[in-house]
């Protein structure tokens, strides 16, 4: 009887977790206001970051490498 009651709750938790994961991963990649749109680097446009870096040559600059999760 207990198992019968728990099943819907467990199913609900799984559905919520899946929905959360979908929103997190596929909910878009919008940057905060005031920033340039997210630049997706490829072999063709790899120099974008170098150009941006050099364009700000008068400033102190930080280069930070992170993983999304």
């Amino acid at each position, binding site marked *: 009887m207990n198992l019968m009651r728990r099943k819907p709750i467990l199913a609900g938790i799984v559905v919520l977790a899946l929905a959360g994961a979908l929103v*997190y*991963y*596929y*909910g*878009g*990649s*919008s*940057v*905060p*206001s*005031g*920033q*340039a749109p*997210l*630049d*997706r*680097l*490829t*072999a063709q446009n*790899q120099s*974008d*970051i*170098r150009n*941006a*870096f*050099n364009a*700000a*040559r*008068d*400033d*102190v*600059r*930080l*280069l*930070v*490498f*992170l*993983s*999304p*999760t």
Partner: protein
Amino acid sequence: MGEFAGKPVRAFIVWEPVLPTDWAAPSTSALKRVSDSRATQFWDHGRLLSHAMGEHDRGSVVWDYVAVYAAGTIWKEERPPQASYSGGPVVHVTEQVCAAVAQALQRAQHLSQPNSLGAFADRSISLTRRGVSRKTPDLERYLLRSHSEC
């Protein structure tokens, strides 16, 4: 970045897939972690920069890493230039990063003041490197004036 509000500091954030859960580009909520308008964010799906910096296996992936560059540093080659400070994991080196940024800002400000000794010295060194002169008249005048003031 908040500690340096109003200062000439820029941040370039490179997101790259490293962990098994990094299936997709950074989400809006991940990108929000860097909210300063002086930041520019990149998604490096192929870890192109990490490879350019020497990645050759899982152990050599460049990530959770921060580098600080002084004003005037130019990125010429495929890999980023020599940093004035670099380290990681990011969360463990925030104090060192702040100190490095503050130092770089101080140096930039020092050089931007036309009458500072540092500015004269740097101009002199630059001219010497170009083979123009070992001591410029400007530097000479400055040194004489400083000496007489002392």
